[in-house]
């Protein structure tokens, strides 16, 4: 039992609820309690991340952003991602792709997410940037393109090509093409 995690024990495959009664194994009640506490703690953590994401975006609405210049928002965003990892990116992704965030702030977030040097979240950041190429706001799409240019990862080529095909804004179309050329020549 010590080799299994609590969640393994509590999963349907390892807990034969149909044939055995938990009452027959008192330690299982302890495990259930432990699992419930762990699940509750996890839920609390996700709730906290969610609220922090909302607060981060809300506070950023009144900030002015300039390319290449760090802001309170960009610094807090980086610290938030470093602390919470993929869960932070998923929360950010929810607000950005559901388009419930100010366009300028979402665009700024995408620029800095592309620029971050944080290997554990690399893949989810890349996916968020690719997905954001298809947001309805031209500013958000621009931020996604710039984030992808910073990552310089040829894995985004397919998404970029699709985005270029869909892009109606002339200037952004040119900029997306410029990023595509960069990625295609990237080593």
């Amino acid at each position, binding site marked *: 039992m010590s080799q299994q995690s609590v969640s393994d024990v509590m999963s349907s495959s390892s807990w034969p609820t149909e044939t055995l009664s938990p009452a027959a194994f008192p330690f299982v009640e302890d495990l259930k309690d432990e699992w419930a506490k762990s699940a509750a703690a996890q839920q609390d953590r996700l709730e906290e991340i969610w609220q922090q994401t909302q607060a981060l975006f809300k506070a950023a609405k009144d900030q002015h952003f*300039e*390319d*290449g210049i760090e802001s309170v928002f960009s610094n807090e965003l980086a610290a938030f991602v470093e602390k919470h990892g993929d869960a932070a990116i998923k929360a950010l992704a929810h607000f950005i792709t559901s388009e419930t965030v100010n366009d*300028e702030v979402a*665009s700024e977030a995408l620029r800095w997410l592309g620029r971050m040097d944080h290997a554990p979240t690399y893949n989810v950041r890349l996916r968020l940037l690719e997905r954001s190429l298809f947001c309805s706001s031209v*500013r958000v799409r621009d*931020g996604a393109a710039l984030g992808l*240019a910073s990552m310089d990862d040829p894995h985004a080529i397919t998404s970029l090509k699709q985005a270029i095909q869909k892009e109606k804004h002339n200037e952004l179309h040119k900029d997306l093409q*410029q*990023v595509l050329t960069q990625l295609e020549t990237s080593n």
Partner: protein
Amino acid sequence: MPLILRKIRKARWYYNQSGFPWLLESDIPADPLGDLATNNNELSVWQIDDDKSNLPRVAAALAANGDDISNLDYALFDQKLLNEINITLRPSKGNSPDETANQNWHSDIVELSARKLVELAKAILTHAEIKRIPEKEILHLLAQAVAADQIERTKLRAKIWAKIDKLAILNKN
């Protein structure tokens, strides 16, 4: 007559009337004004030679002021546009890590009223060339500027010189 460059964020200037149904025909959106933030009723701009030969150096100087390597978006327009809307340009020392650029190519647009600022934004929207230099190109320009002693390495932020160093190693290999 030289050209005038102002650093902007390109997407703030994306504009078509259909995207702003609430906007009166003679009016413009307010967001571009965010790129024309004045200080003491003055606006910092750079003078670019007609043949744009100093554009890469000015771009590097501007990027060198940053915390990290980034794309550089700019609006470039004919200086005579300022005369047409009765705006005064005064040469002044720039505030970049490139002293030559600061001395030779920086100016301030001065005595700016709110009305003149809106006129300037309208003129830029209508007549300026709005361009982007990609992040990768900016990194190369900065590396060249440092190598040519146009910019002192010590005046750059740590993240920038770390990327310049990384580029130098990649180029060696």
